[in-house]
């Protein structure tokens, strides 16, 4: 590969579209607070993309912090662990926000937080050992998607990877968990990067940070540009434009390398691996201690939260307990979000537990929660000019309304990543992203039906 392709970019490459979302990073300058273990945690068996785990403990079993409580033989999955020490109370079904039901292990804490005695630093001298260890750690993409990390890191042999991109864009409003990760855990980020790149043989690492986090850029630059911490000079920081969705995988790859991941393909097809900053930092800690993924830094914010802050919580803590820890609600919450306001999932109550891939829980009061009514499309074209995938949401919505599958395919509905920029920008307040999401589902069903007919 020629040098120009692997040189570090001085400034980000052009990325199309993008919405000017408000930042609302209220919690950026306050240090994360560690939340003590709650009396009970609920460990869901489905905290990743892929096959759900099966509980491997039963009621009455004694568990410790880091004990595996659920696993499966399926490769695309990640085991789940107890985040407290105590006793398994029951195994029961929990309704997920999507409406699906998942098994969950309810564990009563003894308040001791005793680590599992079997925990020891994993052996990770070869790539194979490393990938096995990453899976055993239960690591999934911590940026929100929850894709099992060992699958992502297990690059097919025929793909040549030259760049590891560390995703610190954090383009969603409110969320500052990654921002705090960089400030509070910078050494771990760097050592995690080195662990991954040495084993995968990658020589170029780009840490992409949105320009609205100058302190994080400074801190990461100090480390990345220091010979002591980056002896091979393979890590550089790239300041990205503060524009939503800068942290979306395909957009980030374009901004950092100028390459477009082909439609329907993976980052590896563009020679890249993208990892969230919290994920690499976790890898470093895990390799040193062997403690699997049992805690997560969350941004708790929104107009209904009394004390917005970043909290490090045991995974499985019910959201209601996290909210109590943050001083409770200062007004009746009318919308509860798992994730950011642009792509987060609205929950129906706060009894659900915190998941591995969560990075924020937002609670909105009436005023913030209520969306304005839709009015007629005035064809202003804002959805077209903000779409980071250069799609035409106007045409897609027409196609969905008419159930015109050919038109949906012609305008490449499946390239839509549902970032919500179109709905955000729409002056007529139309639910564009929702309509397209519906269309994608309709198309999938139609294609499955056609397959069934054949």
């Amino acid at each position, binding site marked *: 590969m020629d040098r120009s392709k692997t040189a570090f970019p001085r400034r980000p490459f052009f990325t199309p579209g993008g919405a000017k979302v408000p930042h609302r990073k209220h919690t950026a300058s306050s240090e994360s607070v560690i939340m003590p273990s709650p009396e009970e945690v609920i460990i869901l068996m489905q905290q990743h993309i892929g096959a759900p785990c099966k509980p491997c403990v039963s009621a009455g079993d004694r568990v410790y912090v880091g004990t595996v409580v659920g696993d499966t033989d399926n490769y695309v999955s990640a085991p789940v662990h107890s985040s407290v020490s105590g006793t398994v109370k029951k195994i029961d079904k929990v309704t997920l926000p999507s409406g699906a039901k998942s098994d969950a292990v309810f564990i009563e804490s003894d308040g001791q937080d005793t680590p599992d005695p079997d925990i020891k630093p994993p052996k990770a001298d070869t790539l194979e050992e490393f990938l096995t260890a990453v899976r055993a750690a239960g690591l999934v993409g911590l940026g929100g998607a929850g894709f099992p990390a060992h699958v992502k890191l297990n690059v097919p042999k025929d793909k040549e990877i030259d760049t590891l991109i560390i995703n610190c864009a954090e383009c969603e409003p409110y969320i500052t968990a990654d921002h705090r990760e960089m400030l509070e855990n910078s050494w771990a980020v760097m050592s995690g990067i080195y662990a991954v790149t040495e084993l995968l043989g990658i020589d170029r690492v780009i840490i992409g940070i949105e320009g609205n986090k100058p302190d994080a850029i400074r801190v990461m630059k100090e480390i990345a540009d220091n010979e002591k911490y980056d002896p091979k000079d393979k890590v550089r920081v790239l300041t990205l434009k503060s524009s939503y969705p800068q942290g979306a995988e395909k957009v980030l790859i374009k901004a950092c390398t100028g390459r477009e*991941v082909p*439609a329907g393909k993976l980052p590896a097809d563009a020679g890249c691996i993208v990892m969230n900053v919290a994920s690499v930092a976790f890898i470093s800690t895990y390799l040193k201690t062997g403690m699997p993924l049992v805690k997560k830094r969350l941004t708790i914010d929104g107009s209904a939260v009394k004390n917005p802050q970043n909290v490090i919580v045991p995974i499985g803590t019910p959201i209601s307990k996290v909210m109590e820890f943050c001083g409770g609600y200062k007004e009746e919450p009318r919308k509860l979000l798992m994730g950011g*306001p642009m792509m987060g999932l609205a*929950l129906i109550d706060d009894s659900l537990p915190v998941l591995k891939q969560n990075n924020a829980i937002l609670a909105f009061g009436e005023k913030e929660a209520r969306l304005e009514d839709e009015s*007629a499309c*005035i064809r202003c074209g804002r959805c077209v000019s903000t779409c980071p*995938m250069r*799609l035409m949401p106007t045409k897609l919505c027409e196609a969905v309304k008419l159930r015109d599958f050919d038109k949906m395919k012609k*305008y490449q509905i499946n390239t839509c990543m549902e970032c919500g920029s179109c709905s955000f920008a729409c002056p007529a307040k139309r639910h564009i992203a929702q309509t397209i999401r519906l269309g994608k589902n309709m198309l999938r069903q139609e294609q499955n039906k056609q397959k069934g007919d054949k």
Partner: protein
Amino acid sequence: MNKMYASSSPHIRATASTRKIMLDVIISLVPAAIASVVYFGWRALSLCGVCILTCVVTEYLCRIVMKRDQTIGDLSAVVTGLLLALNLPSGLNPLIAVFGSVVAILVVKQMFGGIGMNFVNPALAARIVLMVSFPTAMTTWTNTAFQSVDAVSSATPMAAPAGTYSYLDLLIGNHGGSMGETCALALVLGGIYLVVRGVIKPTIPVVYIGVVGLLSFVLGQDPVVAVLSGGLLIGAIFMATDYTTSPVTPWGKVIYAAGCGVLTVLIRTYSNNPEGVSFSILIMNILTPLIENMTAPRPFGSKKSKEGAK
């Protein structure tokens, strides 16, 4: 914990709204409206009032008759009324203005489904209907208050022999013409406001005006006169940029505006009509869906724009 909103993402929206956009358009037309009052007196203001009122009332009644949600609150009818008024001669019989307003809202806008559904610009279509129906009344231009010529009806710069008006007269609007189209400065000021507020992109006005200037120059006409006179500025800045009837794609806007420019010069030069802005925009309005289909941007990560998914 009850009554949670469980809507689909995104959960926040930009502050822009149809109403705010229309309000910005109204604000951007204020300088031109003021200029028309300065040049043509209070008659101009009353004509604006007649058009706006008729448009709003027509829309209100239409929505009731059609049993649809009331839409006069989005202020688009006000914009149509104001735009139409500014495209009329100041001495026009108010009843003709009322007729034009009803045509704009009832026939062109509401019969096709209301805001966002009309295939041509309502104010523009109404102007053309009036020009065809009342050719004399629509081309009887009153002199401005400051013109030394004492005739009641004076020629517009488009119809006048070359050299009748100085560049300065054209720029500040001291010449005959429709109420709002005379003062170039006021129109450009409004255009700049719209661009700064993000209501329109500069593509369409810049390309349209540029093509007219260039082509007139090539055909041996004075490009400055070509740009500053007639309805070009009000057309390029306020009519051609109408969201509903112009392409949403970046290249579509360029082709559309260039088409407007070429047609304007051709009509001005080779037809019996001294003015071609209205017809040019009307024709390009009709071509908009075609242009848009041909200029769909290449989706991210795909090779050709017309390629089907997978």
